[in-house]
């Protein structure tokens, strides 16, 4: 069969569609776990108690200091010898989520710190307790500030999800590899997967710019110039480098 038709054939075939769904699912779940872990870590880093800060910093050191693939294989292959046996999917989102948390913590922290100190002072001056200041004044503002970097992390996570093919999770890349191994049509199988990835990342970038516009209407104090779609596609960020 002709290359282009075979690619299209693969794209609409059941295994590929299911693989794409799995990729999206892994991305979403891992990112949610990452955000929750990141928020907890960010708050721990700002704690008054040194041991709490110490735990957070150790976590960051461990998870930023080892490769994601290593962490993935560790969760999948090493934990069972401690009696902890997670399925492939659980191992995947756990490893990816915990790793993501270490990078999210930094994003959350900058978001929280970007909310001017005067805001906290004003809140306290009204008689609000510290946790109320965080909940009603700081976090709502921080949430809007971190939308661009979180959006970038989403796109990064989508691409990272391909790693879980090595622990037999049936996502896009594994499906493509299995198809290629069976039929030896490497070009077409991998192109089909590649097109899916491009489709998803492009759609997310468009969605991200919509969300950023919506957030700006609700009065963010920092007026950052929004990135054009071209800048996003080429990976231009607002000066943040994610080193993994």
């Amino acid at each position: 069969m002709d290359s282009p038709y075979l690619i299209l054939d693969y794209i609409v075939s059941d295994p590929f569609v299911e693989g794409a769904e799995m990729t999206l699912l892994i991305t979403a779940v891992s990112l949610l776990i990452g955000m929750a872990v990141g928020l907890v870590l960010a708050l721990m880093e700002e704690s008054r108690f040194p041991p709490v800060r110490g735990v957070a910093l150790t976590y960051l050191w461990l998870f930023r200091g080892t490769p994601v693939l290593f962490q993935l294989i560790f969760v999948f292959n090493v934990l069972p010898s401690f009696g902890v046996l997670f399925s492939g999917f659980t191992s995947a989102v756990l490893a990816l989520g915990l790793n993501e948390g270490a990078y999210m913590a930094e994003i959350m922290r900058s978001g929280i710190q970007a909310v001017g100190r005067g805001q906290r002072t004003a809140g306290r001056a009204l008689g609000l307790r510290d946790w109320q200041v965080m909940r009603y004044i700081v976090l709502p503002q921080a949430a809007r500030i971190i939308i661009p970097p979180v959006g970038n992390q989403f796109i990064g996570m989508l691409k990272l999800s391909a790693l879980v093919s090595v622990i037999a999770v049936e996502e896009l890349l594994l499906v493509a590899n299995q198809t290629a191994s069976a039929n030896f049509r490497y070009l077409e199988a991998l192109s089909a997967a590649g097109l899916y990835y491009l489709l998803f990342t492009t759609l997310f970038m468009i969605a991200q710019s919509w969300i950023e516009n919506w957030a700006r209407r609700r009065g963010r104090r920092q007026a950052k110039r929004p990135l054009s779609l071209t800048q996003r596609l080429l990976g231009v960020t607002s000066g943040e480098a994610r080193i993994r």
Partner: protein
Amino acid sequence: MKQIRLRALVAVTALFWCVTPLASAQEAAAPKDLIEKGKLTYGTAASFAPFEYTKDNKPTGFDIEFGAAIAKKLGLQPNIMNMDFKGLIPALQGKRVDIINSGMYINPQRAEQVDFIPYMKIGNEIVVKKGNPHKVTSRDDLCGLRIAVTLGAIEETYAREVAKNCAAAKKKEPQIITLPTAQDSALSLRQGRADALFDSTPGSIELVTQLPDVYQIAGKTFEANTQIGIAVRKGDTEMKQAIEKAMQAVVKDGTYASLLKKYKLPASGSLF
């Protein structure tokens, strides 16, 4: 005068005997188009005991030693590229290796992509956890169970056949877990992520001998006449003939037979 001539004769004869063995070490002409001059570069997935595996951080096994002997007959140094099994054929087609020497089973689909030089026939076994908890007696008993296989390897093909047969018999299809290496499959079975795996007969015996408390063989040998071969690029007749010639030399001087014995492979598997 006679003494001098005798000594000269002895010297020349001795010299002759010394030189000839060196000359007969290389018995076939090395092909011209090698990836790296002076080396026979071959792809292998060194996680398939007893054919290729790593011991003390070095690759070892029947294929490794067989490959080294063949290279020597061509006057070349062996150059091993260890990779995931699924990457072997792309590497060969992409001219990143000269041949594939990885206990690759010969089947019609692969024969469309590469040319094979067969050198052994082996059977296959089902390996399960010790105690055979799912009471597996043959491949038909695998419906609804989880089978761990190496991605792209013959085991995956066999597993998918089992799936088809189960579906035809209106039984629940097995869940096929494809992993990068055979070690991963063995680990999966051990951890309880899979219920069974397929392996070559010698490989299965090796596994069960090493870890008798963990694994056991279930059922009888199947596909006992599958051949394995060294793969060359399709149409690469120069390489094919060179390897064939070198292989015959290795068989002829008894290296092949002694390797079979060393790695406890059945002599009945020999194709020569």
